[in-house]
């Protein structure tokens, strides 16, 4: 079940430097969005930007019919989005794309969620689901990284869930100093990432995804990555969101918007 409609803005508040959480009223998205799925949001002035942009669903409030996303102000659309006030509307299509797949039986798996910057929101939704489904909290490991402390999002939300939480910043201004892969290496060296009982989920900048994927491959850990590409349509028809993958027949393109955004890291051909 998907919607394509103008949704009312319920709230739009700053959560970090240049980052905002916008809450929108859409019973369809609120009820149906799964961890890893996204919505295509469109805000135009004139015809600019022409297309909508994809944003991962961060939180859902099914009883109120609301959902929220966290967005980083980067270009035209996010600038316009930041100007929206309660009562304004945003065009929303979604929920779209596939979701993070949870290895079963979930309770016996160590779930390692690796977030980079504004990649954290969909992993929060996943962590919440895992906890709600009864996965023991210590079996949900979250490695939440950013360049600086003021760019780290969702930290307090993860903390509230009571999961095993690592914060890591490149400048050491919050949590550990370094990159998310440094934490993974540490965990691995301490034998805390048993290859047979682990599942890695990653969302963040491409360079981070690639690093995490390589780490997982080296340590023989199954890994899912949520890929970022431009998405003109979000519906699988424009083919503007191609991701290069290895298939049994060689190299092919898959569509990030319907075949993804979550891909098995092993099939992705990195640039």
């Amino acid at each position: 079940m998907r919607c394509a409609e103008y949704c009312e803005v319920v709230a739009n508040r700053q959560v970090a430097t240049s980052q905002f959480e916008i809450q929108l009223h859409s019973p369809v998205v609120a009820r149906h969005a799964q961890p890893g799925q996204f919505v295509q949001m469109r805000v135009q002035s004139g015809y600019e930007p022409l297309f909508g942009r994809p944003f991962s669903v961060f939180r859902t409030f099914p009883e109120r019919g609301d959902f929220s996303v966290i967005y980083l102000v980067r270009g035209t659309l996010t600038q316009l989005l930041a100007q929206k006030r309660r009562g304004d509307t945003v065009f929303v299509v979604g929920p779209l794309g596939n979701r993070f797949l949870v290895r079963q039986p979930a309770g016996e798996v160590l779930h390692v969620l690796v977030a980079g910057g504004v990649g954290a929101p969909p992993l929060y939704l996943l962590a919440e689901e895992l906890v709600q489904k009864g996965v023991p909290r210590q079996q949900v490991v979250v490695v939440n990284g950013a360049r600086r402390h003021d760019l780290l999002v969702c930290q307090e939300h993860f903390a509230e869930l009571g999961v095993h939480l690592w914060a890591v910043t490149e400048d050491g201004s919050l949590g550990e100093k370094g990159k998310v892969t440094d934490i993974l290496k540490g965990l691995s060296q301490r034998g805390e990432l048993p290859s047979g009982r682990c599942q890695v989920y990653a969302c963040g900048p491409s360079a981070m995804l690639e690093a995490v994927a390589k780490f997982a491959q080296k340590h023989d850990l199954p890994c899912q990555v949520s890929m970022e590409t431009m998405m003109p349509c979000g519906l699988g028809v424009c083919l503007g969101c191609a991701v290069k993958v290895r298939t049994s027949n060689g190299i092919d393109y898959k569509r990030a918007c319907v075949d993804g955004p979550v891909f098995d890291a092993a099939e992705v051909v990195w640039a």
Partner: protein
Amino acid sequence: MSKVKMEVQLGPLRLQNPVLVASGTFGYGSEYADLVDLNRLGGIMVKGTTLHPRAGNPMPRMVETAAGCLNSIGLQNVGVEAFIHEKLPFLRQYRCAVIVNIAGDSYEEFEQLAERLDGVDGVHALELNISCPNQEKGGIHFGVDPEATRKVVSRVRRRTRLPLIVKLSPNVTDITVNARAAVDGGADILSLVNTFVGTAIDAKTRRFKLANITGGLSGPAIKPLALYMVWQVAQAVKVPLIGMGGIMNATDAVEFLLAGASAVAVGTANYLNPRVSIEVLEGIEQYLREQGEKDVKDIVGTVKRCKPESEF
């Protein structure tokens, strides 16, 4: 609310209404089926189909420009066999016309595609994409050379009884020459326009924005150019036209009808608003009622010169 007649007859092709969705902008229909009532569309022009599946061009393939976008998808598609077996059965459930946009690298490929699709249940017409600017070979050449246009159309004509739509390239000096060549070759209907070749450069990185360097421009930016070409071709040939190029709403669509198109196709607009085709359909109906018209075909090609020296 008085009813207006929306059915249109384009030569051998009858459409329940004049609102189509353009090739490459609506996939194979199934992608939109939960958001759009496909039964209400005049027709679906499916993604450009080739003899064999194609992987398409490297990324990046699309870039936004002022009121438009450039694409260089490179005809990524499942190929004609997979289309017939995997995509067509779904489309057969619906009332709307299914128009298969075909693209070949050679006369032979066009012929084989036409032959393969002839008589296939659920296919209502063929649209010859001789104007796709993204292929390295072939594509551009058929569409810009009137003689090649005439030849490919007449060779395809002999292999199929399906209504034959020829899609014209706008990247030519005088589109009426190419239009006449297509009609001479046996086209029943012309569709226009395909995208305009353009490029985009990233000043910071000093690189082209598209992996393929060039792409085809579509969207509102091209509407004035497309509208002019439709009007020109409407004066030059007698076959019915399907107009497209930057249609974002019903008013845009009406402009194409007034310029001489008997039907319109909504393209890029589908990406930003999946329901736009239905909004265009309803908007045209409302326009006709407001104008006191009873039949959509009565407004086709009726644009007049503006009153001399009128204020803007």
